[in-house]
Every structure is written in C-alpha cells, then in structure tokens.
C-alpha cells in the first residue's frame, strides 16, 4: 500500500511526461494506473510469463527504436511476432497494428532493408486481421511515394480503393475517402506536370489539342476522387488546394468559391487558419470587394494575430471608410508587435509609427490609450529598453528611427529609447530625427506640459 501512495505523489510530477493513458475518451487519464493495473493479479491468477516477457520485449523494441538501434529492434521484433499467437483474444487482435507500426518503422530505417522487404512486410500485414487493411495500404502507398515510386503507389491505392468488407464501419469509410483523395492527389500531380508541358506548347500546335484533352480527362477523375474527402470534416489542406487549383483552371470559379467557403466556414470542420488564407487569396485573385476581404481576415486575425497577412489586413482597414475599421487597424498593428517573432519587422513599426501619428492627429487619443493600457507594463522593457536602442541602432538605423517615434509618442520624450536615438548624430538621418522630435513634441500621449 505504501508504495502505491508514493507512486501517487510521484505521478503528479511525472504526469505530463507520460503519454499513454488507461481510459481514453473519458476526459480523465491515469497514466500511472496502467502499471498498477498490469501488476494487480486478476482473480488470484498470476499473469502468465508469456504476457510478461512479450511486454518486456515490446519495451526493448521501443527503447531500441528510440536509440536508433535498428538491428537490435529487428532482433527483438523477431521474438515479438509470437504475440500474434497470444491466447488472449484482446491482445491478439490489437497486435497486428502494433506490429505494423513497429515493423514499418524498423524497415524504413534499417540499413539492410529495401523496398522489396517493405512491400512483402506490408502485404503480409494487410492480411492479418481485416481491420488494418486500409490503414496499412495507405501507409504503404505513402512509403512508396516517399521513395518516388508513384506508379506503384497509385496501383496500391487503386487496390485498396476497391476493397470492401462486410458492413463498413464509419471509420473505414473515412479511410476509403482518404485513399481516394490520395489517389486524386497523385492524379493532380500528373495533371500539374501536363499543365507545365502545355504551357510550353503553342496553342496552334497540333499537339496542343490532344494534350489539353488529356488534361481534361485527368481533372475530371481527380475531382471525383477529391470531392468526397473534402466534404467530410477534417484538415485537408493539400487536397483542397489542388482541387481548387484545378477548378479555377477550368473556370469553375463558383465551384472553387463554394469549396473554399465551406472549408473555412463550416462549423463541423476544425479551426484551421489555412482555410481562411486560401479563401482570402482566392477572393483577392477574384478581386472581391474590400469589405469581403476584411471579413475573411477578421477571422484569421482572431486565430493567428501574428500572421504576416495582418499587415495586409491593416492596409485594408486603413483604406476602409468605416470608423471602427480604423480602430481595428490600430489594434491589429499592436497585436502583431506583441509577438517576439515580429519585433524586428520594420514594416510593422513603420505602419505603427505612421498610423499612431495619424490617429493622434485625428483626435482618437482614447483608441491609443485603450491599446496602450494593457501594454504599458511590459512593452517598455520588451521593445524600448536602452539595450534594444543600442542594438537596433547598430543593426538597422531605419528600424531604430521608427521605433523611436513610436516610443516617443507612447512614452514621451523622457523615454530611454527615444532619448538614445535622438542623441545620435547621423549625417543622413539628421533630418528624419529632427522630424521625429517634432512629432513627439506635438503629439505624444504623455504631455509633460499638462
């Protein structure tokens, strides 16, 4: 008992390290419990040594894989196969998947392995138990793709696609869709190559017609393959992208828009920034009204406020006629600069400096204060320390000037960053610095005079 409670205490600290959990899906997980469940003797019956050694064997395989000792892993794997003959039905049924995962990993990296070995292994594993056929087929195809064997991969996928077994469970249906979609992706690849070829041909050339006909055939097949998957909730970026590209190529703008809108807005789909980016880019190509573009980016702003499209978003907002869009424009800029990765983005600083001045000139002091209130505790040390002043000045004088203006506007001319930059004597930038000083004096939020 006592060591159990010790485990309990210890487990608290180790919780997050361990991944395996006993009860998945209930929202609670007790990774440490698994060990105990394993050791608790069930019904007074001791666990058989067979179970004990095979699980030890699994442990050794995992360790060898972790250390990239492929030969050793293969050695243990040799013994682990006997779990397929386990008299425990549950373990026996779970075994093929585990063996497939471990075995394919070993064969992928093992120096003595080859595509042939992998193929044999995959074909064997596909036929142990029924539930794994599709999954293994798909992974087999991906392996072949990885080795550049597109045709074999395609053949494999076609094989898997036609496979049927009794009443498909719903999970199998998604797999079939996925397999078809990968097939579609392969077709897209050929199509894409053909398109490249076509672009080199002259339209009057006699070959042009047959080539374009060829392409058309391909796209038709592909669209059938891709459509089913795209309609099921999930993240299907590469599939969506290629599907839309083909639709657009053949002028089906409405179809493309529908797909992208659905992909971005359908609530059943998981939140996915790329969905909004694709839609935005599409609408931009289509020259959609500004209002529409703003509404798309607004969602992206909520998911990824540091995305590089945010500067574009800011420009759109700035150009808009609406007042609240102007306010949002300021918010977006502040938001971008909250992120450590964007601190040296000169465009962002330039926009902020300019827009801040403009806003203050436009008598929207409240907007600035609203943004600044939540940041005044940490931005000074995050952006405007004297260390940054020195290093920015050394690395990028233009950036330093923009930042100095912002610092001056927000913190007043007493601020270290501003003071350091304004003291610099630079031939080229003298005029600019002078302007900055003037703006700060005129517009700074902190007015010493008051």
């Amino acid at each position, binding site marked *: 008992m*006592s060591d159990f409670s010790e485990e309990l205490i210890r487990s608290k600290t180790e919780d997050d390290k361990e991944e395996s959990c006993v009860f998945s899906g209930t929202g609670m997980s007790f990774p440490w419990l698994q060990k105990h469940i394993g050791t608790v003797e069930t019904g007074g019956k*001791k666990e*058989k*040594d*067979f*179970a004990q*050694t*095979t699980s*030890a*064997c699994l*442990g*050794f395989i995992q360790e060898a894989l972790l250390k990239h000792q*492929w*030969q050793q892993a*293969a*050695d*243990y*794997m*040799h*013994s682990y*196969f*006997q779990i*397929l*003959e386990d*008299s425990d039905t549950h373990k026996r*049924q779970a075994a093929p998947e585990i*063996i497939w995962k471990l*075995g394919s990993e*070993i*064969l992928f990296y*093992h120096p*003595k*392995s080859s595509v042939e*070995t992998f193929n*044999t*292994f995959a074909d*064997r594993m596909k036929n*142990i*138990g*029924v*539930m794994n056929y599709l999954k293994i087929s798909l992974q087999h195809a991906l392996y072949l793709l990885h080795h550049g064997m597109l045709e074999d991969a395609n053949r494999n996928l076609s094989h898997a696609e036609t496979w049927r*077994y*009794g*009443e*498909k*469970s719903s999970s199998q249906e998604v797999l079939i869709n996925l397999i078809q979609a990968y097939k579609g992706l392969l077709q897209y690849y050929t199509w894409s190559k053909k398109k490249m070829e076509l672009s080199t041909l002259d339209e009057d050339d006699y070959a042009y017609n047959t080539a374009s006909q060829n392409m058309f055939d391909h796209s038709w097949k592909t669209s059938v393959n891709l459509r089913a998957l795209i309609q099921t909730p999930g993240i299907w970026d590469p599939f969506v992208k290629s599907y839309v590209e083909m639709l657009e190529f053949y002028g089906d703008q409405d179809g493309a828009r529908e797909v992208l809108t659905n992909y971005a807005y359908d609530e059943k789909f998981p939140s996915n920034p790329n969905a909004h980016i694709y839609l935005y880019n599409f609408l931009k190509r289509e020259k959609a009204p500004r209002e529409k573009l703003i509404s798309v980016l607004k969602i992206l702003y909520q998911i990824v406020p540091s995305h590089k499209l945010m500067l574009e978003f800011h420009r759109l907002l700035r150009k808009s006629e609406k007042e609240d869009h102007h306010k949002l424009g300021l918010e977006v800029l502040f938001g971008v600069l909250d992120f450590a990765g964007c601190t040296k983005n000169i465009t962002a600083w330039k926009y902020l400096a300019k827009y801040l001045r403009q806003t203050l000139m436009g008598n929207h002091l409240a907007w600035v204060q609203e943004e600044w209130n939540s940041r005044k505790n940490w931005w000074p040390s995050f952006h405007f320390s004297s260390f940054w002043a020195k290093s920015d000045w050394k690395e990028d004088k233009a950036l330093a000037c923009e930042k100095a203006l912002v610092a001056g506007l927000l913190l007043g001319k007493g601020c270290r960053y501003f003071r350091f930059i304004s003291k610099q004597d630079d031939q080229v930038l003298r005029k600019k610095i002078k302007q900055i000083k003037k703006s700060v004096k005129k517009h700074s939020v902190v007015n010493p005079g008051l």
Partner: protein
Amino acid sequence: MELEEAKEFREKCTQCAAVSWGLTDEGKYYCTSCHNVTERSKEVINTGAIPNAKIQAINRGLKRKRKLEKGWDWYVCEGFQQILYQQAEALKTLGVGPELKNEVLHNFWKRYLQKSKQAYCKNPIYTRGRKATVLEDNPSHSDWDSEPDLPSDFSCPSFVESGTDSQPNGHTPKPFPISKASQSETASICSGSLDGVEYSLRKEKGIVKMTMPRTLAFCYLSLLWQRETITLSDLLRFVEEGHIPYINAFQHFPEEMKLYGRDKGIFAIESWPTYEDIYKKMIEIAKFLDLPRFPDITEDSYLHPNILCMKYLMEVNLPDEMNDLTCQVVKMTGIGEVDFLTFDPIAKMAKTVKYDVQAVAVIVVVLKLLFLLDDNLEWTLSNIAEKYNEKNKEDKPWFDFRKWYQVMKKSIDEKKQKWEEARAKYLWKSEKPLYHSSIDRAVVYKRREMVVSLQKQFSVLVDSAPTVEKKSPSSFQFNWTEGDSARTCFHGHGLQGILKKKGQSLTTKNSLYWLSTQKFCRSYCKHVTTYEESNFSLSYQFIINLFSFLLRIKTSSLHEEVSLIEKILFKRKYGKTKKKSRSRKRRKY
C-alpha cells in the same frame, strides 16, 4: 457448413463486423469472411428449433474429425509419462546417474499411477480390458497402440454422457432431458487424447492430478532421493535455460500422438516454474505417494549446508576463509544435523529443507556478523583493508568489502540485463500449434505460418552473429579469474582485518548484530515475516538481491530464511551458557 441454419444469427462479427455466419461442425457460429469462431452456438440462440438437425451436424462433425485427426489412442497419463521420460533423459545427459531414471523415477511414477488408480490396481478408472502402462527404458510406441478394440464409448466420453446415441443418421427426434446449453458445451469439447476431456473435468478429492509443474516436482523428488548434486534452484534454472524439456515438451511426442482441444490446457504451459510452487508440489506428491524416509543427508553429501555454503561462497566470489564461519553457524544452529536435513514425508509435519536457500541464508548471516551491513561499518572496515593492502602489497590481501561490492555489482547487473533480454526474446510457441477444435485448426495453422514467415523476414535483418548462444549447463553462473581487474577473484583474500585474536581463538571485531526480523508473525497467514525493502540498509538489500537472483527466488523468501536462521541461532545462544571455541559476543538491539 450450414449457411442456411446460420441465418437467424444476425450479430456483427467482432473481428470484421461482417454479418455472414456459417455453422461449424460443433454447432458454433463462425464468420464466413474472416473465419472468426464465436463462443455462441446455435442451440443457445435458437431455442425453438428441433434438435434433430443439430444431432446430425454433431455426428457428422465427429466422424469427419476422427478421419482427419486419426492418430494413436492415448491417455493423458501416457503423455505425462512421455514428458517424464524426456526429462529423465535430459537429466541423464546432465550427468545424473542412470538409476535415477530406471529405478527411482520409474518407481515413483508407478506408485503414482497406482495411488491415483490409473494403473497397477484392481479396478483402474479407465478401462476394463486395458493393461497397465509400464514405463520402460525406451517406451515402445507399439505399446500404446496395442489396444485397438477399445470400447467404442471412449471415442468421446462426454458425448456419451450427454445421453445421445451416436447413430450416424439418428432421425428419430428424441426428447432432451438435459439443458440445451450443456449439450452444446459437450459438443464443442474434444481432445486428441482419449480422456483429455474427462481428465480436465475430474476433481476427485484426495487425488493429486498430474500437471506440468508436477512433472518437475517428480524430477526433483528423484534427484533428492538419489542425493544428486542438483538443487531445486539449479533444476528450475536448467528448465528456463532449456536444458530440461518443459515448455512445449509435447512437441517431442511421437507424430501419431495428436494433441488438440482440452489437451492444450493440460500440456501447453506459458509460464516458467517458480521455486515456491514446485517446492510445495514436491511435498504434496511425496505425501500422496506415501513415500518412506529419504536417504540420509550427511556431512559428505552435496546438499549438506557446509558443502553448499562453500559452493555459494565460490559462486559469489567471497573468501574461502568464510567457510569456517559458515560451518560455525551451521553447527550452532543445528541445521547440519541428519534428522533436520533428511526429508521424511510420513512425519507428522512433512517439510523439507530448502537446501540452497538455507545455505545462502547462512552466508548472509555470516556477512552480517562480519560486516554488520548497516551501511556504515562495512565501509569503515573496507577503508582499513584498503590501507593495509596498499602498504603490504606482497602479503595475502585483506578482504575489501567495497572492492568486492564494486566487482559484484557490475557483474550482477550485466548478468541481470542479459537474463532479462534473453527472457524477452524467449519463443514460447511450439512449432506444432495447438488448437481447440477442428474449425480452429486452419486459423491456428495459418497464424503460425504467418508468424514463421514474418520471423524469417526479420531474421535477415538481425546481426549475422547470434547474440545469445546456448549456454552449456553449469551449476555455476559466474567465473572468477585471478588477474582480470573487472572480475577480480576474492577467493584467496584473508579476513585478518575483520577478526581479532582473543586468547586462543578468533572473534569478529564487530560485536554488534541486528535481526532481520524482530517479531515473527504468529497468525494463520502462513508467512512468518515480510520484506519491505526500503526498511533495510542498502548493503543488505544488495546482498539479498544478489543471492535471490542467483537462485531465481523472491527476495522475500530469502529474507524469511535469514530470519529463521537468526531465530534459531540466537535462541540457542541465549539458551545455553556460552562455551564455544570461537565464541562471539553479540548484542541484540
């Protein structure tokens, strides 16, 4: 394959979720797509149907199966006899005298058959016409086959019990007095041996049924009778190392002895034997066989603690001089006396000594006497020995506990690692797969084939040099050589630093002692003490771990044995007035 009859079963298959059922010869449902056989049988579900059709199916199944699996008619006890024969042969190749097989084990087995009323008695439980089975030097297979005219009801005893006539085309619908569930059960039960089903169901009071672990108990009893130089822990280690047939021993049955169905539960085993279990079974069998007192174990026999202590001192690389002290302890506790050591099953409290565990426990006690093992004194003494050895390089070195610990720790860790790896790589499944019924057969064989082909594929990827070569059997697990610094041999080291002269005799410098168990458990739970590792000093833990690994026993059972020896040692000590040539002062605390 009665697809028609299987129509009313509409559940999804647990393996492939298909709903496509066929009916097996035993009346169970199987999935036609993946050949998964359910536990459900037709009778259970379809209670309204006329039983007639089922009788037909069952009968047909039986007939066909017998054709398919035609082998010799054999009994379960013959299977065990075959295994005992193999084990005895293996022991002979290990160097045990041939009398063990021809006389001792043979006699024990005959006695067992008689006591369990299987043979050599007036009314054996099986047959009227059948002769007793005899263990010959080389059991001729024709002997098993010599009874072709067995009563027909033995072809499937349980089936007969259920009350149906085995008429091939029994169209006459008979009322069924027995519940349908039980009928389906009997129909699905079968075995390759004649009495496999009956055997596994038999639960007679007072009869010790043969099992796989009991074959080893038989072996050990014969070894003990012969006073051979193999201890129980050695025997079990040889089993694990594969020198003695045990797991999958049925593989070596003659081709014509078919095993399946219930035989699987009887002969297939997926665990190694454990010391405590075999020890208990050995006593149980000896009592059941009503064996007389075993030959005396005297000072010159291998199982005497003095000799075993010497053996284990060598094994764990301790100085030979310690043997003097172990002999002292043996003498003082009286555990070396013939009456104490000799096994007497008829005695009121039949119990035998765990010779190997006891010898090792004596060594632990001596180590405690010398070094106290309180994580303090042993290191102080080591410092003294180290200094002395540095100054006197020419002399016989003093035993340095720290150095010994370092060498042993490293060796034992390596050994343990190798042992664990070898266990993880152990292949349990036999080349001849066992199946439950004829439906199972194809699936089981296919699975076996798959495993073999996968193994073949992966064996190419393994380093060409096999890492674990088969060790030749040895009662020693370590090999200490002089000169090699990693495996320094301490056998010749002296104990001068630890002992001091007192008049004529020597005493240990250390005058303290602590007891491994202060209070023995007096309740009926059967264990006398418990071992909670963390309550003890690290040195003690190390020593206990070391020895229990050598014997492949639980640490708690060694700890218990140590406590028991201390119990006797100190009781005597305090009971008598001290008068020993090399007496040592001890204080309890």
